[in-house]
């Protein structure tokens, strides 16, 4: 059994705004040192959940333990140990990077050395720049730095890469990994599948205020129907029955010069062996496997406008 207790434990959390139920029933736990993703369409309750964890909002029901303490009754203690990067939280436009870091460091009892954070986050050249003059990517870097300046044990990063261009997004991913390498547990709220797949050790998929699944990114994909599709151009003509009669193969279709073979299990092995026996070379062979994208859409299958938008976003970046 593991000896390290979870750093965050959420048990049957619920929270409503008026009649709108933002969080219906969320239970999850985050282990020390992992990057834990909270994934879901817009408006699914991700942000409300982490706001309750960081003590910004009062929950209606359930319990939350952050490093063993209730964030509602031990606000100061939790805030000193949890760094939070919020969506769309700015700084005064005329405050410089250096001034912001020094000011926020002074809020904490045991702050990190902000000069070192500046090096790690590549903010050195912008130290004298005012917040209003920073690029979106630089503002996000500063935001991460401010979330870490209190020397927290947990960093909650909400929609960190929304609005960043693909290059800045990739750089930010590297930064998040370097944060984890510092021994900080990271809770990453996102609706980018690629981001979750790349970074997270484990993921909670939340939809309409409820946890749909908690697993590793790979585990979530495996839950899907493991249908695969092979595509190739045969070096010479052959009869479809050559492949259609194979056990793992469900269907063979020809599109243009290409053959598309679908099936489950070891389709690849069966097809390649059969073709080799017939002396046919499969040129340009590609295997299409289900992605986290597919897994996500299968779980959050009602395809709300938000989910559709999410899907579009993901396609844009890939």
């Amino acid at each position, binding site marked *: 059994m593991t000896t*390290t207790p979870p750093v965050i434990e959420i048990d049957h959390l619920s929270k409503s705004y008026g009649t709108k139920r933002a969080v219906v029933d969320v239970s999850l736990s985050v282990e020390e040192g992992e990057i834990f993703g909270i994934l879901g369409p817009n408006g699914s309750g991700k942000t409300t959940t982490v706001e309750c964890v960081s003590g910004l909002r009062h929950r209606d029901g359930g319990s939350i333990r952050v490093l*063993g303490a209730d964030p509602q009754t031990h606000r100061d203690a939790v805030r000193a140990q949890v760094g939070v990067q*919020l969506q769309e939280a700015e*700084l005064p436009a005329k405050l410089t990077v250096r001034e912001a870091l020094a000011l926020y460091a002074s809020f*904490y009892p045991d702050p990190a050395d902000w000069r070192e954070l500046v090096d790690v986050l590549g903010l050195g050249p912008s130290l004298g720049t005012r917040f209003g003059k920073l690029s979106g990517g630089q503002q996000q870097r500063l935001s991460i730095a401010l979330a870490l300046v209190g020397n927290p044990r947990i960093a909650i990063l909400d929609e960190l890469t929304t609005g960043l261009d693909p290059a800045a997004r990739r750089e930010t991913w590297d930064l998040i990994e370097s944060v984890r390498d510092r021994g900080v547990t990271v809770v990453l709220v996102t609706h980018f599948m690629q981001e979750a797949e790349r970074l997270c050790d484990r993921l909670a998929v939340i939809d309409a205020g409820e946890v749909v699944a908690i697993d590793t990114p790979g585990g979530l994909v495996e839950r899907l129907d493991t249908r695969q599709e092979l595509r190739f151009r045969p070096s010479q003509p052959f009869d479809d029955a050559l492949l259609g009669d194979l056990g793992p193969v469900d269907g063979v279709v020809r599109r243009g010069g290409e053959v598309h073979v679908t099936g489950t299990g070891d389709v690849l092995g069966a097809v390649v062996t059969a073709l080799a026996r017939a002396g046919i070379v499969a040129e340009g062979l590609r295997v299409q496997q289900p992605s986290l994208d597919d897994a996500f859409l299968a779980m959050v299958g009602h395809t709300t406008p938000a989910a559709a938008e999410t899907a579009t976003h993901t396609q844009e970046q890939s």
Partner: protein
Amino acid sequence: MTTATLHATPATAPSGRVFRNLLRSEALLAWRSGAAVFWSAFLPVAGLVVIGSISGTRTPQDGLGGRSVLDTYLPILMMFSLTISVVTLMPPGLAIYREKGILRRLSTTPVSPSRLLGAQATIYAGLGVLVSVVLLVVAVAAYDVRLPDQLVGFALALVLVGAATTGLGLVVAALAPSTRVASALSTLLFFPLMFFAGLWIPRAAMPSGLRAVSDWTPLGAGVRAIQATVDGNWPPVSSLLVMAGWAVVSGVVAARTFRWE
């Protein structure tokens, strides 16, 4: 099962140091914005110098209750500085802090956003009070205005009118749903406040009914109290009570209605 525990270190940084840092940062931002420096410091002092350098402004006039133009406008310029600072400039500044999520970001740290509010109010009210003192010093040093015998009374009047106007500014910041509305409201509020302070018709020249209304307004009471101290008297108790009343009521309303996000 054991539970992960918090560090044994104190959960908050020393609160005095935090407030000093917030004050410094807010002062720097006010300086960089330029508006506060120009409207609240430069303009009133320049106004005093212009009035003082015109001949005849230092002779007593019957129409001004036996006071000179300079004596009459000295407290009005003080009110101008304070009002521009805490009623016109501060509320939109606070509304921006709310709109841009700066207060929200602060609430993720061990420091409460109310400390930032306090720091900003201190800086803006402090600026108005400081400029008022500078105006008095310039008037006494350069234009033979009598130093108030009642310096304590002068200081008390200044603090009370500072508190009353700051309260009004905070009410505007609390009630305005957006930065634009805050700007509009605070500009709108400036004119009646300054009218009753006597900017366009000095109180001594007001019809008695209008002056009675002015007595009940925060700036009317402020001018009345400060004028009395420059005349060599203790401020009328009723004027002090009016200012204290505005300060308390506006402070309570602002505290009850302020939205942090």
